[in-house]
């Protein structure tokens, strides 16, 4: 029983990371139907920014987090402007290839400057270093922080998209850019805003992961990025609570398979379940299966 509870703690923590990244994927996908491969690398950059803030400039956790989010926001906006905007009217698949290009560029650009070796975050002190023990169950403050920041950000996002003007604009742009323009919506700035927001989330995730696992490297975004993207698809891509559910679901499945099944087949089981879910619900768990009206 204790084992199971501890596994649930493990699953929620892991799931939070996926969920946080999945939110960014979902937002960008929601507005320009792009699987933004570079998202995972913005997350990596966020982790490095946090690392330099903490270890070279000796900043605390919160200022580092904010700086990382800020820089990632800028980066996201710049990437969109330089690499994706010229392709506004191109096919989606060519934008996808561009995104892969941007992703490689960020990975190897970073590697060129900081080498491929892992870096480690400085050890946390004070509150962030504490752990709570309940019997045999261990929960660290970092885990609590990670989970609560994720949930707060997701509620915030859902609020922005569903109720604010800019959120409405985002949804309009995602469906028909010309028509949105005719409503008086500034399409370019709406898209920039979305990228900025998504990238800020990635930056936050990067720092949180850096603090929690304490290990970063230039290719660190690849695997979690892929899984987060799968989480987004699983929940129904473009749907914010879907990304959240997807993230936690994948976290839970991974933990359960590794903990109670065969850890060798952990990822295979995740993918297997994903495919099964899609076969039953072809547009994800929360996705509406609307067939185009003829």
């Amino acid at each position, binding site marked *: 029983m204790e084992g199971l509870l*501890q596994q649930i703690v493990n699953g929620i923590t892991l799931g939070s990371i996926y969920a946080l990244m999945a939110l960014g994927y979902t937002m960008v996908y929601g507005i320009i139907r792009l699987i933004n491969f570079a998202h995972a690398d913005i997350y990596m950059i966020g982790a490095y920014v946090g690392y330099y803030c903490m270890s070279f400039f000796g900043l605390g956790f919160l200022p580092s987090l904010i700086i990382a989010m800020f820089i990632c926001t800028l980066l996201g906006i710049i990437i969109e402007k330089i690499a994706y905007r010229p392709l506004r009217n191109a096919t989606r698949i060519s934008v996808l290839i561009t995104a892969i290009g941007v992703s490689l560029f960020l990975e190897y650009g970073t590697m060129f400057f900081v080498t*491929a070796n892992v870096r480690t975050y400085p*050890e946390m002190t004070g509150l962030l270093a504490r752990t709570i023990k309940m019997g045999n169950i261990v929960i*660290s403050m970092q885990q609590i922080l990670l989970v609560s920041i994720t949930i707060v950000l997701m509620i915030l996002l859902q609020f922005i998209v569903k109720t604010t003007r800019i959120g409405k604009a985002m949804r309009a742009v995602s469906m028909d850019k010309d028509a949105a323009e005719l409503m008086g919506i500034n399409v370019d700035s709406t898209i920039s805003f979305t990228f900025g927001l998504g990238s800020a989330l990635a930056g936050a995730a990067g720092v949180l992961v850096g603090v929690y696992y304490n290990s970063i*490297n230039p290719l660190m975004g*690849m695997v979690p990025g892929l899984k987060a993207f799968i989480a987004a698809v699983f929940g129904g891509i473009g749907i914010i609570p879907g990304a959240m559910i997807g993230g936690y679901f994948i976290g839970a499945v991974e933990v*359960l398979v590794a903990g109670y099944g065969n*850890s060798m087949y952990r990822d295979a089981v995740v993918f297997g379940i994903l495919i099964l879910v899609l076969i039953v619900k072809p547009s994800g768990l929360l996705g509406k299966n609307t067939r185009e009206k003829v």
Partner: protein
Amino acid sequence: SAPAGNEDEIRIGVNYELSGGVASYGQSSVDGIELAIKQINEAGGVDGKKITLVKYDNKSEPAEATTLANKLMTQDNVVAVIGPATSGAFKSQIPVAEQNKIPVASGSATADDVTVDASGVKEYAFRICFSDSYQGTAMANFALNNLSKEKAVVIMDSSSDYGKGLADNFIKTFEEGGGTIVAHESYVSKDTDFNAILTSIRGQDFDVIFIPGYYEEAGLIINQARAQGIDVPIIGADGFDSPELVNLAGADALNDVYFSNHYSSLDKDPIVVQFIEDFKKEYDREPDAFNALGYDVAKFVVDGISRAEKLDGESVKEALESTTNFEGVTGSFSIDENHNAIKAIKVIELQNGVQESVITAGQ
């Protein structure tokens, strides 16, 4: 067709993983190689000739390694090739080496069948690291005899040939020696979260953990294991050797950790001391195992070249075959009939993040 080698330079190929999944091993090895060659050239080169490295990136892909080996041997006219770092990529260039009669040497291809397999010795392939069976066996014996443990959990890197090779050999020896494997878990390279595995073994009865894998993940496993209150000894192999291990695991967690290695920084051997100092000066950081092995394999190849009768692949190969008592940073070694380096294993004990003692286990 190819540009002939300049009269007063000697070309050595460098075929490493500079991008892709295992770029960090390739890059580290190349750092070591470049340092060695720089020092050799500064000291006047070989017979007055400077060494030139022809360096390519094989993207961590064996096919690319084959293609580049072809390029190095048929177009760039190298006399020897160093690398790749991983066994798979290294193996896939060996047939090319045999065809072109150019020796190839790796500092870190540890799989057993790299230099010798059922069909015999690969004439042109050399390595200067331990083989998986050698290290896996040594660590199993160490756990049984030195630590007196008999219930082991193996947490293996299932995505690397290194992890698999070590695990297979460890398990075989450990079980033959009367031990039992309580659980055999696995992870893949670049994983960061091992809590699920650790939670699931926590409820079981075992007295030692063996982690065949590299420090990137091992450091995190140790950290998370200790945080979950698992305090049995943890043992590993030369993949643990990196100054980052202590940062990843945290000094508090690095207790009762043992790993096999070629050398120890406790070693007062002047060669080692000098290397660490030079490396720090050049790169502003502590060297790790790949750095040291890269450094040694470069020196090893140049040593062969300097003793070769003629400057061609065949002669260099013969010279390499006859290497005896080569004094490297990673130990003094000779090349045996299977083209492996025979050298002593040192088992390093870590307590509170620092090296507590070194046990030399010989052959």
